[in-house]
């Protein structure tokens, strides 16, 4: 009597285990067909190595692209390839046209179903923002993906050129790259001989978070003629306010986020206890740049220029003007516009042709 019971249970359990196993393997078997999951069978492939070190086979030509990072979306628009962009993330908001593309969710856990439904030839990811699990999942689904990884401004430019090459638009890439290099070289020339300003880049004020020196933002600061007082090799180090007061940066740098006026956010920060110990707060020495600085995309060069103008207005003023008194609040030199979201900046980014 009892033996029969145990036998039955064991029997049932074995059957259940087998069915689960069979289910699993059958499912796998069905789905693992040879490559060519994209919409139309492609004749040609390009083999490239992405920033993960993977050898990736990308079907050519690439006509349907899904971007899983806002910076990559911006880059595609900068290269003039936006017609090929079929899907991007919820956070891809620049240029405004990108908001009209089909959304596939966030950057950390994008909706794989939605991506598959868009039948992309290529999915673009970044090593920094996206997760390796997403990359592996895309690989398992037979979707080609290409990952970028940028730590310096030069990385951004070369990465853009390589991406353009992968997408079959090398000329546009080289042209854009050259234009960006030109602007950087021009900036460097203007700032040559001028000592850099010591700054603190404020990512978040409570807790106080800044950027590390090995990030592309850290590099961007250097290009703008700024020297970050943060020495950390962490990407987003949390700073001790006392230490910051001891180091006394000359300027606080904020990246404008949507909706807030930077003036208001500076004031709210200045009100907080302890911050008045900073000379930069008492003297209202703050600089604001567009949040383009947060994205490793071509637009970062504009943000660099913006910051440089605010930190070193004397390098941009026409030679006849008097040097501006250091004590007065910094304002951008009147002849050049530097609104964080000015339209003129946008149009400059769209056009790949030389300005």
């Amino acid at each position: 009597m009892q033996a029969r019971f145990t036998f039955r249970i064991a029997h049932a359990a074995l059957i259940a285990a087998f069915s689960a196993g069979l289910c699993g393997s059958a499912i796998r078997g069905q789905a693992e067909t040879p490559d060519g999951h994209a919409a139309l069978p492609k004749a040609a492939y390009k083999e490239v190595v992405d920033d993960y070190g993977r050898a990736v086979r990308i079907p050519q030509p690439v006509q349907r692209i899904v971007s899983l990072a806002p910076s990559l979306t911006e880059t595609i628009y900068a290269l003039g390839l936006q017609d090929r962009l079929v899907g991007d993330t919820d956070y891809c908001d620049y240029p405004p046209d990108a908001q009209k593309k089909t959304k596939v969710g966030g950057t950390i856990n994008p909706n794989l179903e939605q991506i598959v439904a868009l039948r992309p030839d290529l999915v673009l990811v970044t090593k920094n923002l996206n997760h390796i699990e997403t990359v592996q999942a895309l690989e398992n689904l037979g979707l080609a993906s290409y990952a970028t990884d940028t730590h310096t401004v030069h990385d951004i430019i070369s990465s853009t050129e390589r991406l353009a090459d992968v997408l079959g638009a090398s000329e546009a890439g080289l042209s854009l790259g050259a234009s960006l290099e030109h602007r950087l070289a021009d900036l460097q020339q203007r700032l040559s001989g001028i000592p850099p300003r010591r700054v603190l880049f404020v990512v978040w004020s409570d807790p106080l978070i800044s950027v590390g020196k090995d990030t592309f933002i850290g590099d961007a600061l250097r290009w703008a003629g700024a020297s970050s007082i943060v020495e950390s090799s962490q990407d987003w180090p949390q700073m001790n306010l006392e230490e910051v007061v001891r180091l006394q940066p000359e300027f606080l740098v904020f990246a404008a986020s949507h909706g807030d006026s930077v003036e208001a956010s500076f004031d709210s920060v200045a009100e907080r206890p302890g911050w008045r110990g900073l000379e930069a707060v008492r003297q209202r020495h703050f600089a604001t740049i567009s949040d383009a600085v947060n994205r490793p995309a071509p637009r970062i060069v504009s943000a660099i220029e913006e910051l440089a103008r605010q930190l070193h207005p004397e390098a941009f003023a026409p030679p006849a003007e008097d040097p501006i008194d250091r004590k007065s609040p910094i304002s951008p030199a009147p002849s050049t516009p530097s609104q964080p979201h000015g339209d003129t900046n946008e149009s400059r980014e769209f056009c790949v042709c030389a300005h």
Partner: protein
Amino acid sequence: MRPLTLSRLLGYCAMLGAVLFVVVVIALKMGAVPVSLYGLGHDLIRVAFRQSSQLSTEYRLIIFDIRLPRILLAIFVGASLSVAGSGFQALLRNPLADPYVLGVSSGAAVGAILALILEAHVALSPAIAVVFTPLGAFLGAALTVFAVYLLGRREGEIDTPTLLLAGVISASFLSAIIMFFMSTLTGGNYHGMAFWMMGDLSTPIQPLLGWILRVGFFVAAGTIYMTSTDLNLLLAGEQEAMHLGVDVRRVRVVVYIAASLLTALAVSVSGAIAFVGLLVPHAMRLLFGSDHRVLLPTAALGGAIALVVADTLARTVVSPSEVPVGAMTALAGAPLFLYLLRRRAL
């Protein structure tokens, strides 16, 4: 007097099995990409007859490569957590016990964070990197289980109150370590880790891990099931159980290891999903009684149902974005907990 019979047990299981089937079919239908039920049925038949090449590729990918594996994952994670919860509630003789009370999930989180940090410094191919975190989590969990076992003994054998204390303190300690390490993680990883800690089924797992989870579930749950009648008696009191012929010492060790294994496996692949392991056993007790011969299988099925429902909601309410499934189970779990409390079922 109506003692339990095999037919009654199978009847309960069949009932829940039918509910699970319906829930799975509905879950297959729902998602960012809608699927019709009729079309689905038609296509499943085609698949069964190996004519799947007639389906559109994207459709096949979505159903079989994305949705079905995810549903399967939810089934086994939900079942594992519920059985583990039942086991711990019996082992610790405490209705508030859940699979995480002895620190298994905290240990897994520490392991996962360490794996993430290590990954950043060592270049790994994606194929290896994706199993790195679950592996780290599992190791962290296993070490914690071992440590708590050592700490929870008195005179060489598990002492229930000591075990509970050791587990709770370990969990707190490990949580502090987690907070410390979280502050060193960078943006994307930080969010990913936070997501993981809330419980997340959105990341597809490697097929090998899925296999390990399934096999591990049957082995560990089966082992606990073998002690069902012992657990029934254990609930009457440890001294009493001993006098009634239960080898209390052996049962404690077996249930501890098996329930911890179930929890470790589940948490390694999906993070710490809340409330499932605590409430499903109570709900099943309310419906079917406290006899573990019935409770364990029905808890497994009930947990599977609960998690599939929660996960389907998690991935459809704010489509194409997602809510972590742990948030869904907590949202539903807390009111349910209060309801059970009022009905004095706890």
